[in-house]
């Protein structure tokens, strides 16, 4: 039972001052085993804050990140699943599912987590699953101003993943979940 937090596109301090208070009250250290972050934090303070939640932090570089040492893409294995991470501004057209599928096949992962569009999406295709955690602060994106703060928590348990989607809609935290399983040999 591994809890993985997928979060990104905070754009602190340029586009948003901080995470919403309700999100911050829920994110306490000790519960989460891994954090995967799509990028665009942008400053070191946010990096330190995420590190305090969980020492196992994986980040890829977004175009506004001030730390240039983050990699462009990252892959990691958690339990039975291979996860891939990429900010998404490199994949053109932005947010296009077929292009993301290409990237996923390139990285050869079961679950690809990418951001940049600031919209939550969970999409399934033959090569695997693409998850976009959206923007955790609700910062405006290059495409739209109408953004709900959101992030994603994945509960990986054997061959089954439960994806909990946390969104702040009208000042209230709404949680939904998505279930999927992986067959032991093939990808999802």
């Amino acid at each position, binding site marked *: 039972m591994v*809890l993985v937090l997928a979060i990104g596109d905070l754009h602190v301090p340029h586009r948003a001052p901080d995470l919403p208070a309700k999100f911050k009250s829920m994110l306490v250290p*000790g*519960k989460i085993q891994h954090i995967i972050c799509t990028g665009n934090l942008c400053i070191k303070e946010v990096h330190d804050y995420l590190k305090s939640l969980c020492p196992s932090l994986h980040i890829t570089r977004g175009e506004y990140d001030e730390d240039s040492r983050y990699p462009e893409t990252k892959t990691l294995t958690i339990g039975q699943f291979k996860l891939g991470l990429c900010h998404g501004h490199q994949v053109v057209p932005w947010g296009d599912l077929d292009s993301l599928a290409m990237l996923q096949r390139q990285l050869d992962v079961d679950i690809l987590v990418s951001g940049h569009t600031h919209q939550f999406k969970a999409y399934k295709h033959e090569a695997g699953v693409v998850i976009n955690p959206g923007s955790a602060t609700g910062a405006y994106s290059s495409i739209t101003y109408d953004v709900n703060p959101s992030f994603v928590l994945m509960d990986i348990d054997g061959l089954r993943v439960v994806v909990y989607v*946390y969104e702040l809609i009208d000042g209230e935290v709404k949680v939904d979940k998505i279930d999927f399983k992986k067959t032991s040999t093939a990808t999802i």
Partner: protein
Amino acid sequence: MNLAIRWFHEEDDDRRPEPQLLTNSEEETYSQTTTHSPTLSDSQKQSLQIMVKKRVPDWLNSPMWTSAPPKSRSQSPPPPSSSNGDRLHSYACKSSSITSSNSLNEPHVTLPPPASIRPVRTPRTEIRDSSTRSSSSDNDITSSVDDVARQAELLQELSRKIVNIGELRRLASLGIPDAAGIRSTVWKLLLAYLPSDKGLWSSELAKKRSQYKHFKEDLLMNPSEITRKLEDSVYPKNGDQISEGKGLLARSKIPHGEHPLSLGKTSIWNRFFQDSEIIEQIDRDVKRTHPDMPFFSGNSASAEANQESLKNILIIYAKLNPGIRYVQGMNEILAPLFYVLRNDPNEDYAVNAEADTFFCFVELLSGFQDNFCQQLDNSIVGIRSTISKLSQLLKKHDEELWRHLEVTTKVNPHFYAFRWITLLLTQEFNFADSLHIWDALLSDPEGPQGTLLRVCCAMLILVRRRLLAGDFTANLKLLQSYPSTNVSHLLYVANKLSSHSTQ
């Protein structure tokens, strides 16, 4: 002279006692504690000593207090020079009562007959070793005869269709011999886990074991599994999500508002994270239990399995008892219980040891729960009142020692008795000895506390000579790392304290 002090020591009344050195210091401390005015004439001192001597009840002065039976001494070959030999012999015997050489640390093993050991006696150290070995082997010879008789009686009692628990208690209070492997069954009967009617055993055991299995399933599951089970019961399994091709994944509602970051009090996730602290502590303590014993620690698969069982039992106990949860020390009480039940020669019992141990542990702890509850510390059932009961017991049986300890040297019983009482003496003796002591504790029909206090009192009385000669530091050091002694002797003394409690 100092006849009064030699209650529980080896020497018979008529023999010349200790070497000169100790006598002098003892006399000094003795007179320090008993004289009221510094200028007391010799005759007054004598009368005081006689007075004190009269206070010692006769039964305490009898030769049966010697841990080696008197006949052994008559059989010993004459030492090289009579006075020297006397001194050496008596010194050696005394050292065996107070500090033991390594031979007494082993569990009761029947040593070869004394005659073969005794001829090797010329150097002094060897004399001491061999005489202690001979005294303990004498013990073993006589005690092994007793053991065999008791073992036969116990086996006979156990073979009856309806076991007489009272009789079993009486037999067990003298100690259960290791050889027969019946300790596990006897303990289960004494803790009322098994009913006295043998015919009911199989049905009772099946019932309890399945109950434990349910506990494990309910309480040891992590929240992912719990939510999965909940859903599978609500939404029956529909074929699949696997064979779909492309498309947005469907979002579904979460059951009961349960999500991992939930901060709600009733949320299973939240409770899980709160319990995880206790689980971590249990894990740490279990790993530290008896690190010297391969049964409990090490890298072998069996040690890991045993540790896993200990953890499960403690976790389930903590979850079922939100009042006390887990307190450090419970692992020490659980360890001997699990060890005995797991090493049952009966295959079926050994395999199900975890379930059986759980219920026995609950039963055992039910009498002592109050010791672990901090709020009850100062109440009438708490640990403080138990310690003061011990203090009163000591005062009743040995006022001089009590006065010296508590008043003169100000050794507050809380400093040493806390660990003795809450951990049921598991930390004061080696593992095998503590099993013997537990035989006596569990056989008390009114619950282990009475016998426990008597054994503690006996422990104090057995080292009274050193305590009376010591100051605060020395006494505390002695009591906090109690020297190993002959446990049968200790139990015998404790037993005597109960029968003469009216004096």
